[in-house]
């Protein structure tokens, strides 16, 4: 089985982002692998270890992704492709899916595993659009993958009310939730071996496609502005006599909040 896993480099959301003139301030930010994609990588590696599979990852854009890709190598991924092209600067999910379609078609894969969403945009579309382009079945929000035979897999997906078990014929696309596994921490041995492995870096031309083919590099959506979400104001704490506090609270509700 050949598995293609997609990984995206995202801003470390543990850091506080600052926006100036509608753009994110890059200074002080650091980039990490998208947590959902890290789970996708772990799921691919586990399939490789348990059932035997060839694992390849692909990342798109974001400049130099060497560190992230090597980290995935150290986790157990065997091959890495990085697509970088100036034409992708303003790409959205539909463009990414188109590029992934090209990668998929070059590699003759049986299964695509993506994170169900990315930590930065939370849009959750890429994997699903890819399946649409490829005309293959897709299950999203997957929390378990089981190989039935060469042609079929069984996946579990969570919903509000419970779990759905779905059997899929390959090739297929699944998008996974972070709860599918606890990604391993790459260890030194893997990191050392990863250093020696090559990364297949290519632009769109090398991928055998062009701007035009990826929808003329015209995204279906465009980011016009970033805004920092408002943080909740600190609450007020009252101490002392219950009757006094009640009177004070009522007063504030009536006169300051004007809700009474």
């Amino acid at each position, binding site marked *: 089985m050949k598995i293609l896993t997609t990984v995206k480099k995202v801003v470390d959301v543990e850091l506080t982002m600052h926006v100036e003139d509608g753009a994110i301030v890059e200074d*002080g930010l650091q980039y990490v692998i998208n947590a959902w994609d890290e789970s996708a990588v772990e799921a691919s590696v586990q399939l490789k270890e348990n059932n035997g599979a060839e694992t390849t990852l692909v990342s798109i854009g974001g400049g130099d992704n060497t560190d992230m890709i090597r980290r995935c190598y150290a986790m157990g991924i065997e091959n890495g492709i990085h697509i970088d092209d100036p034409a992708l600067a303003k790409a959205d999910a539909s463009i990414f899916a188109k590029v992934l379609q090209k990668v998929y078609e070059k590699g003759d894969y049986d299964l695509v595993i993506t994170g169900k969403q990315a930590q930065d945009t939370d849009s959750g579309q890429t994997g699903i659009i890819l399946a649409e382009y490829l005309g293959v079945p897709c299950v999203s929000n997957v929390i378990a993958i089981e190989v039935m035979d060469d042609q079929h897999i069984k996946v579990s997906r969570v919903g509000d009310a419970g779990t759905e078990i779905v059997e899929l014929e390959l090739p297929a696309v699944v998008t996974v939730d972070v709860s599918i596994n*606890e990604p391993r921490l790459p260890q030194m041995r893997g990191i050392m071996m990863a250093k020696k492995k090559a990364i297949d870096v290519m632009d769109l031309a090398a991928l055998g496609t062009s701007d035009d083919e990826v929808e003329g590099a015209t995204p279906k959506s465009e980011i016009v502005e970033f805004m920092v979400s408002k943080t909740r104001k600190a609450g007020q704490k009252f101490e002392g006599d219950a009757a006094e506090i009640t009177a004070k609270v009522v007063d504030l509700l009536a006169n300051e909040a004007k809700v009474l």
Partner: protein
Amino acid sequence: MNPLLMSLLLIVALAIFGRIMYHKILLLMALEPVNRFNHIKVRLLNMVILAIGQKRLVGRKKEWIAGIMHAFIFWGFCILLIRSLSLYGEGFVKGFQLPIFGNDSIIGYLYIALKDIMEGIVLLMAAFAIFRRAVLKPERLHNTWEAYFVLVMIVVLMISDLLLDGARYNLIMLYNNPDHLHFFNNPQYGSEFLWTPVSVGAAALISWMSADVTGYILVGMFWLHIITQLTFLNFLPLGKHFHIITALPNVFFKNLEYPHQKAKLLDLEDEAAWEDESLGINHIHQLNWKQGLDLYTCTECGRCKEVCPAYITDKPLSLHEFNDKLKFELFDNADNIIKRAKLSATIKEDGDSEQMKEIKARVVELNSKKQLIGDVIEEDTLWACTTCRACEEVCPVTIEHVPRIIAMRQGQTLMAEAYPKELNPALKGLERNGNPWGIGYDKRADWADGLDVKTMADDPDVDYLLWVGCAGSFDDRTKKVSTSLVKILQKAGISFAILGVEEKCTGDFARRVGNEMLYQMMAQENIETLNNYKVKKIIAACPHCLNTLKHEYPQMGGNYEVIHHTEFIDQLVRSGKITLNKSFQGSLTYHDPCYLGRYNSVYDQPRSILKSISKDGLKELTRHGKESFCCGAGGGRMWMEETIGKRINQERAEEIINKHVENVAVACPFCLTMIEDGMKELEKEEEIKTQDICELVAKNME
């Protein structure tokens, strides 16, 4: 008496003993090298104080009776060695006299008097030891036939020698046997029996025997003594009584740096090391020779487990069993280890590659067939240790348990990648944001907002760097400690700054769980930052940071003068830079953090500060100072669940509760969390307040 028999006995006994010892020494020489032949004077002094002086046996208040018992048996044996030599001489030549200790010298007479009394004392002590084992049964002792057998042999040795002298006395005094039965009879100092009251007493006990029987007793006791002694000698290396031979050298060769042997700074890029699996301890042959000698020397006295927080709370870690298992694995593989070392020595880097490959393959085949972790030592055992070092402080023969455990964890983490996966979030947090909570590194200095604290970037010329630590920066409770510390430093007018967002975890916990890669990453980045600012003096607000900065960063080129905040506050008080009010009300006790006390010998300064503020003085916990009890968070345990046995923090919290105090002072953020959690879990957080010394000082200074 009988030169032929004596020769025969000596040749057989010494040949067997020589062979056993030769093999044991060969095995040690086949283990990994470590230099323990430096600082001879210090080593001799250690040997005199710890081994000959029996410091940790006699000096331990809790068990001074057992300590005295052991010490007298040991001293008795040392004294009796001279007597034994003269008896061996007597076996060959009748009337044999040792030089200096002979018949014509007062030294000889003083010696026989001392020897006589000592024999009586050793006899009493050995009898008490048997009684103690059989009747009193201290929990730490693990009762075996071997222990009784050795004690009985000691009794036989004493009785036989006393009866030998007693029989000689009776033959001389009661049956007018010729004078030549005297070993000592100098006209100036008189008959030896004027000097040996115990032997004379023994003589009285057998005075009812006839002359003939007494004669037989004399000869019988002589040979019984000699044979028992030679049997004893050969029995020693076979079991835990090997310590009688190895304890002195073990103390002599003890580690001199730091409180114990520092974790090795591993070269993680050394490909040969990866191939040999020699990063950390993965196989029994990777112990160094001193660690082998430690195993020879472990007497299974159980003091280590008696103070071990893991053992006390029913974790599967019993250190003397740990030693025992390693010892048997070492002995089971002894021949292969020796062969392996010889074969390894023939590997030449520039040799014929095919031939070398073959030798290497043969070397690997000689590895133990057992997995060191898994088959010999269980995983839960290895990970139960909190690295608190209580075991090392009480071990009478200075065995170092913790460095071995860390090295095995290095092996597990680096080579086998088989460490508790629950550590991953904390390790990942370190990797990405330089703190085990994984909170964005950019928030590291948020606690100091509005406190008017400079960063090194603002002013690199300050006198001190305040090393806040991850807990002090990110943990809400500990942030209050940081704030208090800042208030104190500002009050005292100290010129200081923090690194702010440039500070990262020192890597302490990564190193304790064997993740040398992450430790080195953290250390390297921190050292670069510190050296860049030319930092010289550091005040550390966490004993774990203190320990790593002070003792482990020098391995990587980071050399600073580091002191803990309690030491610094104590200096401020003494120099009058801050004045404390004796205004703190309510009973107060102090919990010693392991990494401040046992690792850095800071015991007095925190106490001195607390005594200066407390109206009611300071109440000591039962387990305090060197034998203080760990809070349960060291050695990376802070980031692991505690699912087996009782929770260590609750054990400690109970001890505090039972002291009926209203306040407990700590000096470490981990202890603060663990003790406070313990109080909450036992629903005592309202009655007993847990606070860092900084907080108490900030509230009680003028």
